[in-house]
Every structure is written in structure tokens, then in C-alpha cells.
């Protein structure tokens, strides 16, 4: 923080503290100031409005509520040209319009390989087989009788920002960075279930794996090393306090903290303890990273530290002219907790340290703010995350230097928004 408060010309860029002090002092006075500039009284104030006169809706009007109609543009969006068919496709979380860190289930991105199925709790079965002492079958009701835990984790598709490898393509934070959501999960540690089946048969656990698959037609099988399986993987049935939505794997999904979203198998129906990776299609032909020399990296499960400014951004332009401006965004790391986020307004020449809304939590989204006084001039906005391993989010140039141009997955580069003096923003690459 010290760079921020001492490193800037205080008249042009007031420090965060000075800004907050000023805002607090103004307090309710802000309204007065606006009123002082108005030529005529505001009819919204001087005239009795319909909503202030008559009734609103009664309590039972909407037994389960949707957002008010004025927010109906805050929805998941699809990029049609990306995939051949919507049942094996992805859409994007409207991160440009959200704040805080928890993603409501109804607008959290979806990725299906053969569509979101409808599976009743009564029809749900979870099998554990393979190298276990007693292969078991659990019903949904069985799962609810094991001790359960609550954890907040982000889930990011390995292809998030993947379309940006070769160049700036999609104009909006929703499209460049919206293959992510962050929810509070309730579920049973996978370790508990594996121990219920018994792991003596598996012998030395160091070289063992689990293979997990879903109940949907794609089955989306993935192999996970036993170490991770016994560490923090969760068999979850609630998200943000309520049942998982259909599109998020109702009634039960796997949660694999910090690791690529494809491993978070939805509608999970089977967990097999094995002595090798199955090397399924999703872990060989897909979700592997081809380097410049044609050799591909595999088993690149952890999602590295990453951040993005969500506002201002192409879908969230500045509409108020110069003066107080909240620059905000999200940061996350699959290898730990976010410790710091820096923001640059000049394309990476100089950086200021942003304020974290709360201390970073392991493998969960962190919200950052840079409360600033915009001079109305063009900005090249960037954000740069650091996590508790000391890792610093790289530039696109740094990533390309190591991986080349043919990679698709695991693009965690620094993003640039060109914000023009009229407040509009565009996705760009900079030198």
C-alpha cells in the first residue's frame, strides 16, 4: 500500500485514504452538491411517484424470486461460433455486472458435454469401486448422513481466456474471463467416502488414482491423483445454501479446489480407485497444452494466479465523466490465496496496489477495488495478481515466450482494457 500513498502526485491521484476521507466527509452532502447544480426541482422528489402511493406485490407473488426485470441483461451469454452445438458447449458468467465474490447459481457459467440432465435425488446413485476393500453404493440420503463441510471455491474452465491466446478477440470481460464462478459448497469430503469403502486393498497410496465419471451421456471421465482426492476434494450437494442447480450437476457434483473446471464432474455417479490414470479423452486430446515445438504438457491441473478488471470494461463503460471512479475486479489462484493485486492505468508502465475487499482466501475469488479520481484521459487498464506462493501473474508476452502461440488452455495473462476519454472501453493488446 505504501507505494500507492507516497508514489503519486497527490493532486492528480489522491491516495486511497485521502479519497475515502474526502468521500466520508462529504457523506450525505453529495446529494446536496448535485441539487445545487440542478436548475429545476427534481420531479422524482417533488411529485408523489406511483410506487410511493400504491401497493407493490404481495408476499406470495414469486415463491422463488428472479432478479428484478431492470437487471434482465445480467445473464449468461454464449459465443455461438465457438462450438458446434449448445448441448456440448459453454457460456459465460456476466462478471462485468456482478460485485462481491459469490456467483449466484442462476448466472454462473455452464459447461456441458451432452447437456444438463434432470436426475432426481431418488434416482441418484454413487458407486465407489476399484481398489477398495468393499465396493459401495450410496443413495443421496446416505450422503446427507456423513459429516459435512462448507467451503468457498472458484471453479474456472481451463479454456477461460483461451480465445485470447493468438490476439485480442472478444470485447467484454464476460467473454474473455467469464468461464469462472465462485460458490459456497456444502458437501462431504471425498476422503470420508473413500475411507468408508476402505483403502487397505489399494496398498501404497502414493501411486494411486481415482477415476471419476458423471451420470450424463458424456460421462466426462477424469483421473485425479489420490493425494488430491484425499486432500480437499468435496462431494457437494448444495451451493450458496441451496440445492445445486440442474446446470451445475444436481443433485451431486465433485468439487476439486483450485484445479481446472473439467475435473469438477457433475452428476457424479462413480469413483473408481485405480493404479494408473485412465488417460481419458478429456485428459489427453483435450485440456493438454501444446507448446511451440509440438510437444504438449499434460496433467496441468492447477489454475495459476489470475485477475481481471471487471469494471470499467467493454460491457461496463464509465458513464459519469471524470471525478471519483471505482475500478474493481476479481483475482484468484488455484495454488493458494491472493495476497495482493496491482492496477496499472498506463498499460503496465506504473502500478498502484489495489485494496482487497477481504483478505484473500485459498482457491476462492478475491474482490479488489482501486478507488480513484479519473482525470478523464485515456487509460490502458490492467490488473496483476500475486498469491501466497509469491507468484506474479504474467503478461501475455511472457506466457507466449514459454508456451508459444498454439496453446489454448490455462491462459492467465494480464488483460488490458483501453478506456477512452468518453468512458468506452475495448479489449486490446499492448506493447
Amino acid at each position, binding site marked *: 500500500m505504501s507505494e500507492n500513498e507516497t*508514489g503519486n502526485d497527490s493532486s492528480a491521484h489522491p491516495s486511497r485514504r485521502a479519497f475515502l476521507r474526502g468521500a466520508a466527509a462529504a457523506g450525505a452532502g453529495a446529494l446536496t452538491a448535485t441539487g445545487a447544480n440542478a436548475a429545476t426541482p427534481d420531479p422524482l422528489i417533488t411529485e408523489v411517484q406511483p410506487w410511493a402511493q400504491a401497493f407493490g406485490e404481495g408476499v406470495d407473488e414469486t415463491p422463488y424470486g428472479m432478479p428484478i426485470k431492470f437487471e434482465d*441483461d445480467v445473464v449468461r451469454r454464449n*459465443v455461438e*461460433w*465457438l*462450438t*458446434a452445438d*449448445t*448441448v456440448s458447449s459453454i457460456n459465460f458468467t456476466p462478471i462485468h455486472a456482478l460485485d462481491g465474490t459469490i456467483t449466484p447459481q442462476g448466472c454462473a457459467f455452464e459447461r456441458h458435454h*451432452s447437456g444438463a440432465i434432470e436426475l432426481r435425488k431418488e434416482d441418484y446413485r454413487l*458407486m465407489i469401486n476399484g481398489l477398495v476393500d*468393499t*465396493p*459401495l*453404493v*450410496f443413495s443421496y440420503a*446416505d450422503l446427507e448422513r456423513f459429516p459435512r463441510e462448507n467451503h468457498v471455491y472458484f471453479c474456472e474452465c481451463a479454456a477461460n481466456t483461451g480465445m485470447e491466446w493468438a490476439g*485480442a*478477440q*472478444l470485447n*467484454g470481460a464476460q467473454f474473455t474471463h467469464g468461464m469462472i464462478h465462485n460458490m459456497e459448497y456444502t458437501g462431504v469430503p471425498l*476422503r470420508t467416502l473413500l*475411507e*468408508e*469403502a476402505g483403502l487397505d486393498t489399494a496398498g501404497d497410496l*502414493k501411486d494411486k488414482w481415482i477415476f471419476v*465419471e458423471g451420470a450424463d*451421456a*458424456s460421462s466426462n*471421465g477424469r483421473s485425479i491423483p489420490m*493425494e488430491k482426492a*484425499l*486432500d480437499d476434494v468435496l462431494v457437494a450437494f448444495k451451493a450458496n445454501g441451496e440445492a445445486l442447480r440442474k446446470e451445475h450437476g444436481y443433485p451431486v457434483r465433485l468439487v476439486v479446489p483450485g484445479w481446472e473446471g473439467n475435473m469438477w464432474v457433475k452428476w457424479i455417479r462413480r469413483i473408481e480407485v485405480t493404479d494408473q490414470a*485412465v*488417460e*481419458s*479423452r478429456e485428459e*489427453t486430446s483435450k485440456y*493438454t497444452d*501444446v507448446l*511451440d515445438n*509440438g*510437444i504438449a*504438457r*499434460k*496433467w*496441468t491441473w492447477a489454475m*495459476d494466479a489470475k485477475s481481471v478488471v471487471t469494471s470499467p470494461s*467493454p460491457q461496463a463503460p464509465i458513464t459519469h465523466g471524470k471525478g471519483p471512479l471505482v475500478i474493481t475486479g476479481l483475482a484468484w489462484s488455484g495454488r493458494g490465496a491472493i495476497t495482493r493485486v496491482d492496477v496499472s492505468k*498506463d*498499460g503496465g*508502465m506504473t*502500478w498502484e496496489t489495489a485494496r482487497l475487499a477481504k483478505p484473500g482466501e485459498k482457491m476462492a475469488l478475491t474482490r479488489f477495488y482501486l478507488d480513484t479520481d479519473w482525470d478523464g484521459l485515456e487509460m*490502458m487498464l490492467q490488473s496483476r495478481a500475486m498469491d501466497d*506462493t509469491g507468484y506474479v501473474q504474467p503478461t501475455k508476452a511472457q506466457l507466449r515466450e*514459454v508456451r508459444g502461440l*498454439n496453446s489454448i488452455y490455462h491462459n492467465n495473462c494480464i488483460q488490458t482494457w483501453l478506456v477512452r476519454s468518453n468512458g468506452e472501453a*475495448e479489449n*486490446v493488446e499492448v*506493447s
Partner: protein
Amino acid sequence: MSKFLRSTALVAVFGLVSSPAMAEKFGLGRAALPAEIAAWDGDVSPDGTGLPVGSGDAIDGEEIFADQCAACHGDFAEGIDNWPKLAGGAGTLDHEDPLKTVGSYWPYLSTTYDYIKRSMPYGNAGTLSDDEVYAIVAYILYSNDLIDDDFVLSNETFFDVEMPNADGFILDDRAEAEYAQWTGAPCMENCKDSAVQVTMRAMVLDVTPQEEGEALKAEPAAVVEEAAIAEPAPEVVEAVFDPELAAKGEKVFKKCKSCHQVGEKAKNRSGPVLNGVVGGAAGVVGGFKYSKPMKAAAEGGLIWTETELAAFLAKPKAYLKGTKMSFAGLKKEADQRAVIEYLKSVGE
């Protein structure tokens, strides 16, 4: 994997596992029966674990592939539109835009068998017999010039096939290749040698989906159009409806389902919605992008009478050269008649 397992977390985790306090059992769940495990445990591993007894060759495979796979993957496994290409791409992995197919990229043949058996055909998963899967895998290998057409692929010959990119993978090396150089106190001031310039703009490509208003308005419009075309259909339908034949047709229609939807909630997919198609005008489903030849035929007044439809279904590409429908065709006349009867039942 070895590096991964050297981490200090390992000690802690396995320490917990061996502790009896953590190994408490709750007595929940029930023992899985062998028949249940056999029904669900179908995965196949690189060393052949899980590979069933069976066999098939590329000649059998070609026919099955044409029926079950070619609608998306093309007759020669070359892929249609955005659907995955399964053949070709040899030697492209270090080029710009590498073509990653079973032949050029997949390191293990087991993956192909495993995926087709568990997840394909698209929209009709888990319906292929073991021999059919062997035959399809053989056809894909043949399409990639990896086997001859007389090679019989079986659980016994499986490892005679060499996968060209078997050695094309390394384990995650980010710790050495990336983390070391991207760790530490980052630059805060004067971080670039010269003034920062914009080098590429997303607006130039213009591939971002349109804004909300336009996208949302498009859908109701399409629905109205469908309703409008559905009405004249009953007058043109030629024969009396046969529910038994329609029931048979519903089964045949499984072959069509990965591309075509019917019913109230039907949406266009890689093929148009087929509600009201029998007896209706060709090329009129709202929101579907027809091929040029189909548009021309529609403009020429083509009506999908039962006769025309049967001719189209028998050999789509011969009936209408350049049609987007890549389905090989329904050879049996009985199947054609059945599926048409079924389509009549979803008319309104």
C-alpha cells in the same frame, strides 16, 4: 507425477490417512453388486485394463461410421463444420493452428475405445456393442493411415497399433519453466522501456456476440414463423396416420436425433427443427441457416411430400448435392416410411 508427490503436503495427507481416528466408518451405503459394477465400470486404461474381448475391422467400421458418426465427423472422419476432425493433421503439431486428431495427437489408442464406448454416439451414448466399437476404432485408424483395411482390431491386436504421438507429451513442468521466473517483487514504476502502444484491438476482428436486445428478440420471432408454417401441413399430408408405424419410426429417428429435434421445446441444432416437416414447404424453419442448394430448392417450391422426403432420406447427398445434411441415408424403405410416419405425429 513424481514432482507432485514430492510436495510436503503429501506427508501430512498420508499421515492423516493412516491414523485410525480418521478411518472411522459410518456403516452407510451398501455393498455394490458385481452386476452393478459391471454395468457402470467400462473405462479402458492405456495398458489395456478394461478392454473387452471383441474385434472389428475398418470395412465393417466404415458402414457403422457412416450410420452412427459421419453426420458430425464426416464420411472420412474429416469433421463437418465445427465438429471434431478425427483424421489428418500428421506433422502439424509444431505448425500454426495444429490439427489435433486421433492420428496426429492422441497418445493412447485406449482413449479412443474408452471414449467411443462410454460417450458416443453423440445423443445416443452407450448403445454400441463392443465389436462395433472395435470396428469404428479400426475405421478411424484406417482413416489416419495407421492400419491397412484388412487389419482386424481386437483385444489381442490392440497393442500392435502404434500411435504416432505416443511420445508427444510431458508432465506439467510449470514449476521449473514458469514459476521460478515469475515469482518475487514485481516492478511498480518505469516498467517498460518505451511508451506503451496498442498493438491489437478486439474491434478489428469483431467476433463478439451482439448486444442483449437483439439476441433476445431473435427467438420469439423464430417461434412465430414456425407456428405460421405448421398450419397448412395437415391438408397436404397424403396417407392416413399409422400409430404403429410411427412407433417404429421413433426408434429409427434416434439416428437423426443428434442433429434434429422435434416437439414443443425443439430448437434448431446442426439440423433444423422437424415439426410439421411432412407435407410442408422446404427450407422454411426460422433461424436455421440452410445450404444454398436447399434454399434454391425451397425457392423453386419444393414441398416435402412423403415421396420427396423418402427420396431425400434414402440418399440425401444424391438427392440434393451440397446439402448440409451429411447423414449417409436410410437404406431400407421400411425405415424411411417409419420415420416419415413418426414425423407426421410431431406435425403440430
